[in-house]
């Protein structure tokens, strides 16, 4: 069961929380709010990702936590103490920026040693810490280089080492892998996650890349329009999206308009656009009106000869067929004008051509009723 309303302060016991956002609002012009009513607890030791399209308020939230923006209203508590008036240098939070923000006029070792001098660590002690931090990201040998002499991935590691060297309890990351190519990005995702787990630090990570969020996170907060749409672990988020935005933002989803007719054995019964009846899993209350059914392309299959009781069955006309190696994508026109995408294992697929009639089915448990 997964309601968007479940995202409440009560869901997390306050003692677990390293960071608490309490009714935080942020506006730059006094009219439009970039962040509206944010309530969020970050648990000690967790990897929390703020995921959302640009302009959804996730980066502003991160900047407020880092101390670079001040909330217009509300409070941010770090370790139980309000910090919204504390400047960044007093918060002891590690921050990894989008373009690394390494200091080009310093060597790698000087970059990593930078935060130490403000904590009274100098000389041999500082050297040891720098060596240890660079060792953690396998860059011991490059301490004398300048950032410009390093590859993008190496710069990323230096930024990480610099944010970790002073052992902050919280590390924030603002789309740190955005500038890397796909392969390197995937390797760094795993490395960052391993580092976070082994050091036991709390990380708050901002990205607009959903696969990155799914790979790395303990929990994901999906941002849209200045609000958290859903806060959940990756599996729940993917399988049980709580609203249409989350359903379409995470992975691919068919969202089909329907009307709620009633309930039957814990399932909602709805009427689709062409008048046919569907059953769908439903968390939401409500008894009528315009709703939608969401179903993922991989959960739609070709219908067998006989109808199965737990399956919704529908027919349509094939509009496009794409061969994608391990699977085929069918674009099917059904329900009187809706386009439905189905992802079907390639070997099982009879040769289809645009214009063919096709019968499809989907498990009722994988059809989810959402508010329109």
């Amino acid at each position: 069961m997964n309601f968007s309303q479940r995202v409440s302060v009560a869901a997390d016991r306050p003692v677990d929380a390293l960071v608490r956002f309490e009714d935080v609002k942020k506006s730059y012009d006094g009219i439009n709010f970039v962040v509206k009513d944010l309530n969020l607890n970050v648990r000690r030791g967790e990897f929390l990702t703020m995921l959302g399209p640009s302009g959804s308020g996730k980066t502003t939230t991160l900047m407020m936590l880092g101390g670079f923006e001040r909330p217009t209203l509300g409070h941010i508590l770090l370790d139980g103490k309000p910090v919204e008036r504390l400047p960044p240098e007093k918060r002891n939070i590690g921050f990894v920026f989008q373009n690394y923000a390494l200091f080009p006029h310093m060597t790698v070792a000087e970059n990593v040693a930078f935060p130490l001098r403000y904590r009274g660590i100098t000389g041999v002690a500082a050297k040891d810490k720098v060596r240890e931090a660079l060792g953690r990201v396998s860059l011991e040998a490059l301490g004398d280089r300048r950032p410009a002499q390093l590859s993008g991935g190496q710069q990323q590691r230096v930024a990480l080492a610099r944010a970790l060297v002073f052992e902050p309890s919280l590390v924030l990351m603002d789309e740190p892998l955005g500038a890397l190519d796909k392969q390197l990005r995937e390797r760094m995702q795993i490395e960052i996650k391993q580092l976070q787990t082994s050091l036991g630090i709390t990380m708050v990570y901002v990205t607009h890349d959903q696969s990155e969020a799914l790979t790395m996170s303990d929990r994901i907060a999906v941002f849209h329009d200045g609000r958290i749409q859903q806060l959940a672990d990756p599996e729940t988020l993917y399988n049980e999206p709580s609203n249409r935005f989350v359903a379409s933002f995470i992975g691919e989803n068919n969202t089909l308009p329907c009307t709620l007719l009633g309930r039957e054995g814990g399932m909602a019964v709805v009427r689709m656009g062409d008048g046919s009846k569907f059953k769908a899993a439903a968390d939401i209350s409500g008894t009528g009106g315009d709703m939608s059914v969401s179903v993922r392309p991989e959960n739609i299959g070709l219908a067998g000869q006989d109808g199965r009781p737990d399956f919704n069955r529908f027919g349509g006309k094939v509009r496009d067929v794409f061969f994608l190696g391990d699977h085929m994508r069918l674009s099917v026109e059904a329900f009187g004008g809706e386009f439905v995408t189905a992802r079907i294992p390639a070997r099982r697929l009879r040769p289809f051509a645009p214009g063919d009639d096709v019968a499809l089915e989907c498990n009722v448990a994988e059809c989810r009723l959402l508010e329109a």
Partner: protein
Amino acid sequence: MSAVDIDRINVFMAVRKAERPARRAAFSLALPLIAFLVVAFVAPILYLLVTAFGNPETREVLPRTLVALENWDGTSTPEEPVYAALAADLKIAKDNSTAALLGKRLNYEISGMRSRVLSAARMADKLETGPYKEKFIGLHQDWASPDVWSVIKRNGASFTPYYLLTALDLQQAPDGSLERTAGDQAIFLDVLGRTLFVAGLVTLFTLLLGYPVAYVLTIAPKAVAGIMMLMVLLPLWTSLLVRTTAWVVLLQSDGIINDLLMALHLTSEKIQLIFTRIGTVTAMTHIQLPFTILPIYSVMRSIPTTQLRAARSLGAGPSSAFWRVYAPQTLPGVVAGCLMTFILSLGYYITPALVGGPRDQMVSNFISVYINRDLNWGLAAGLGVVLLGVTLAIYLLFLRLVGADKIKLG
């Protein structure tokens, strides 16, 4: 040569041939500018160098005398043949009216020589027969002096270091050794030092005033930054002469600044602002400000805002973050801006002439005086060469100190 090598050469030639039209097109596009630079920049500099070292007067006016002097021992009074040759040369000089040129040239090195050459030419014109020696010495004692004759002999060379040495307050003794110019004649090192000092002062002030402005321009909202940029650029679009004249109006004894100071009771009597070094430096600083600001601004704009944020997140306070992370990264712009202002300030001419005092005139003013009033183009060119040399030396020094990649003029 193997067949493979020949193949490789053929390919190379084919590539070059294929690219030839593109190369020609690129060159022909640049051709007008190259031609213009040759005419307007390279040629004048070459002419300047030739003028600074050229020494045609004595060779052209006294060819026979110079031949006759070849066997002279250099320490005693020359013998009769030299004077006979001098008489013959001066006779022709009188006819061609070139004696004055020679007189002027020799006068630079021995004062009084101008009138002596002219009267000797007049006398030579009337002389029919020798002996000439007594007659020249009778006309003026200098014609017997070995020092005068060594100067004449030395100036028989096509090129002379005289102008350059003079511009550096040095002179050649009759025996050829270098010596300092006597006190009242030695003005040029003083002028050069003053030029460097004023240029340095102007550079320092433009940096102190311009650096914060460049920073504010970088962080200001777009609309505000646009207006500020206009204010920085506006003086640049106004004629130098107009701006300098405006400072004359402001700085004069009955000008706005004095009135203001009196009204505020900061001073009880009028302060001499115009025709002083304060006036020169103030006006020059104002005129040079955009040249310092723009390179600094362009470098500051290229520094991401996350640099300061990163420093803050790592524990640096606002001022520590600025000085340890931001300021070092602006260095290329600071060096470029200062270099530009310093080098341009070295060549200032109108502004010191209009608002500076008599003791604030810079090298360029002297160059102008020698060209326009004294018609001593050689010395003007000599001073020009010194200025060019100092400018190049400073540029190279900066290059060595900070590295070519650290100077961003664009």
